[in-house]
């Protein structure tokens, strides 16, 4: 191809010690054209990040090996370069942006020094000119007061701002290729939309090519010119977004797309009309603040996590709490499971005020509300077999023998779609999705009437996420369980919930039936959230998005605008 920046031919990468190397990328070939956005998508373990790391020479030394193939970048074979030559290419000609904006900047060096380091080290210009260029670039990525900001340290920037700094830093050296590994995965949706717009703008201006590695099909649809789909270290499909989304040729691409929850198409699973009996959970005007503790040396700074939240959930109903990080949604979940104490207000679970109990009575009452956590890897005690983990709550609450408890645990394992003979295994032998199923089985073991699920699928691959959501829906209809589902992902929420409560800054700003809130949002913040959510449909790329938050949203008391639809005034 004529204008290609990078040509990768038959790349093979393996991991392991010498003599015992397992190949994980099995000979993939692709090219990146000048000014093109190439997205590499796939689930964890597909080899997408490994491919990028091998191009940058960042494979763990002595453990990761390029086993074959070539990567020609601007006429040079990247794998034939020595360390000094590679350093010259890295940073100056190929820039990088990583997932974690929190850890990719050095916390003890100010932004200005970190940004200009590359310019000065590569001998491109003097320190004073470098400062000027850095300031200009910061302005370009949308950071005001750039001159002052250069003197600040990473902790003085928010996550989104740090990612802007990372982008500015990479673009400062005018690389001909930028590799971004999940650059927006750790960010809130409104911030994600801003960063994607920024990347798109910069690429159009400078003619830099971008390799974007992501698992998010919505992000791909927003920005990519061409998409590579990877599975188990193989390249299974290369297509333009339009072709891929409308007519995927490989069955894996199709499965991947089918599993993506859609915000713009209603799904059937949660649409079950239940004659609501009585509320199983009553949250009544709860307040919670962190900090403000008096110590020997004065009092610490106080932040209000919850500012008068009330919410009722009926038997068998699924209510979703959505909002961005820091909105207080997780705090509500933890308060319902009484993992934290609230400062004010009552939480009635099945008629019992769980926020005022203590000792034995509290331990008994806890059984009614059980929690499922985000991280499936630390949700299970690594030293307990999964059978012991699931049997534990049964032994605590019922007067049963060990044998009966482990029989019941085996039955629960089958109920969540695993097999009973897995009970003797330890957590590390299971995948993330399986561990999340085990965590669900443990939550069911106390026979709760409400499950609190705090981002239960956001650490999982999209196909596994679909399975776990299906499982939750099935359990809800079988056992008439109520569900408080906490998530930042509106598309997931649409699939599972009957009602949605949108939270912002410790308050509920809008609450109503799922379809009503998503189709006819009344509150400005809900509208912003909806417009910022990436849509897995390239046809919608040009749509108007509201991406500047904090414009003084209404957060007064809720008023009813329609039957069951309340909005902050």
């Amino acid at each position, binding site marked *: 191809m004529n204008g290609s920046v990078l040509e990768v031919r038959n790349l093979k990468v393996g991991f392991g010690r010498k003599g015992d190397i397992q190949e994980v990328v099995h000979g993939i070939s692709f090219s990146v054209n000048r000014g093109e956005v190439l997205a590499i998508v796939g*689930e964890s373990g597909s080899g997408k990040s490994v491919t990028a790391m091998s191009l940058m020479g960042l494979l*763990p030394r*002595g*453990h990761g090996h390029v086993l074959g193939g070539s990567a020609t970048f601007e006429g040079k074979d990247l794998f034939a370069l020595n360390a000094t030559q590679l350093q010259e290419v890295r940073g100056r000609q190929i820039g990088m942006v990583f997932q974690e904006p929190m850890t990719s900047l050095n916390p003890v060096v100010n932004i200005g020094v970190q940004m200009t380091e590359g310019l000065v080290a590569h001998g491109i210009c003097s320190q004073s000119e470098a400062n000027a260029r850095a300031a200009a670039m910061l302005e370009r990525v949308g950071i005001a007061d750039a001159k002052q900001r250069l003197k600040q340290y990473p902790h003085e920037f928010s996550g989104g701002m740090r990612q802007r700094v990372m982008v500015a830093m990479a673009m400062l050296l005018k690389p001909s290729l930028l590799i971004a590994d999940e650059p927006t995965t750790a960010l809130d949706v409104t911030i994600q939309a801003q960063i994607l717009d920024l990347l798109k703008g910069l690429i159009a201006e400078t003619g830099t090519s971008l390799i974007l590695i992501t698992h998010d099909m919505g992000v791909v649809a927003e920005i990519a010119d061409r998409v590579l789909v990877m599975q188990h270290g193989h390249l299974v499909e290369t297509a333009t977004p339009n072709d891929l989304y409308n007519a995927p040729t490989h*069955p*894996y691409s*199709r*499965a*991947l797309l*089918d*599993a993506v929850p859609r915000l713009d198409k209603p799904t059937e699973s949660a649409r079950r009309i239940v004659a609501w009996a009585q509320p199983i959970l009553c949250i009544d005007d709860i307040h919670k603040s962190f900090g403000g503790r008096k110590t020997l040396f004065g009092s610490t700074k106080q932040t209000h996590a919850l500012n008068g939240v009330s919410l009722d959930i009926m038997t068998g109903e699924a209510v979703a709490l959505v909002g961005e990080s820091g909105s207080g949604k997780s705090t509500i979940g933890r308060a319902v*499971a*009484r*993992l934290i104490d609230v400062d004010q207000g009552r939480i009635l679970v099945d008629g019992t005020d769980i926020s005022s109990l203590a000792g034995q009575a*509290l*331990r*008994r009452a*806890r*059984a009614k*509300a*059980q*929690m499922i*956590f*985000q*991280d499936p890897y*630390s*949700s*299970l*005690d*690594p*030293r307990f077999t999964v059978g012991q*983990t699931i049997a*534990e*709550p049964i032994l*605590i*609450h019922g007067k049963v023998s060990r044998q009966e408890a482990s029989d019941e645990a085996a039955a629960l394992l089958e109920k969540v779609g695993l097999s009973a003979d897995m009970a003797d*295994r330890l957590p*590390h*032998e*299971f*995948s993330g*999705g*399986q561990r999340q199923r085990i*965590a669900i089985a*443990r*939550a069911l*073991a*106390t026979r709760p009437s409400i499950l609190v699920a705090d981002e239960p699928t956001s650490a999982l691959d999209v*196909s*596994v996420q*679909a*399975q776990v959501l*299906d499982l939750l829906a099935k359990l809800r209809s079988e056992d008439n369980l109520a569900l408080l589902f906490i998530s930042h992902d509106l598309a997931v929420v649409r699939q599972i919930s009957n009602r949605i409560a949108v939270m912002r800054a410790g308050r509920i700003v809008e609450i109503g039936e799922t379809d009503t809130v998503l189709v006819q949002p009344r509150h400005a913040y809900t509208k912003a959230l909806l417009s910022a959510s990436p849509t897995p449909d390239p046809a919608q790329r040009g749509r108007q998005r509201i991406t500047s938050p904090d414009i003084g949203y209404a957060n007064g008391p809720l008023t009813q605008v329609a039957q069951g639809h309340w909005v902050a005034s």
Partner: protein
Amino acid sequence: MTLIPPNISRRSTSSLPRFIIFWRQVVSTPNGAIGASIVLVLIGSALFAGVLSPYSPIKMGVGPRFLQPGAGFPLGTDEFGRDMLTRIIYGSRLTMTVGAIAVGISLTIGTIIGLIAAYLRGWTETILMRSVDILFSFTETLIALACVAVLGPSLNNAMIAVGIAGIPYYARTCYSAALVERSKPYFEATVSAGASHVRLIFLHLLPNVLPTLIVVATLGVSSAILAAAGLSFLGLGAQPPQPEWGAMLAGARDYINRAPWLMIIPGLSIAITVLGFNLLGDAIRSALNPREHVR
């Protein structure tokens, strides 16, 4: 809904017990193998001192005085004509006992303090951990000296003194490890299941902080042995004619020109023992840390 098969168990498990697999990992590095051999030889000589050694450790005049190492008496004899090899072998028994008991005391009490402070938080935590901080601000030797001053000089009291002096170190290590564990979701899930304090502390917290504590304790044996030998050298621990290595060093001071081996041999024994436990502790630490396997 999906065509993708769920991921079945990622790693096949070996049929060997986990402990044996772990032990093989520890001795697979040269450092681990050397450390483990030294410690095993020491344990062997401590257990079978009576069988291994040709003479009694305190019987005088089994040979001539100040005999150089050579045939008959491989490590020579001391100023009373006692066999040095016998004394070193019996000394290993004392040394291992000191190490085990002193570390046992600090580990047990330190772990209890650390677990309670991390589990209960609040005032209990403040009082316990601030007390530990105060103890920490004195050097270990000073605390040990103070204990011996109160209890009186003897090897048993030296063990207790060294044990008490080590408590703050174990308490703090256990405390910080337990704080990390108690903030993990599995712990919160168990709280939420209604588990009792006893169950939470002994079935969930303790087993998960234990690996960290085992590393610290293995490394701690060597410093306990050094501290006890130091006390004995000062005449505050083992008393003559006990064949304790530190006390033997002290006794040999007067003959340093005439019979240097009397000083060199116990000194080397202490050094090799310390080295052995340090190497073993490091090897256990790397075997427990999965990230280091990558290297």
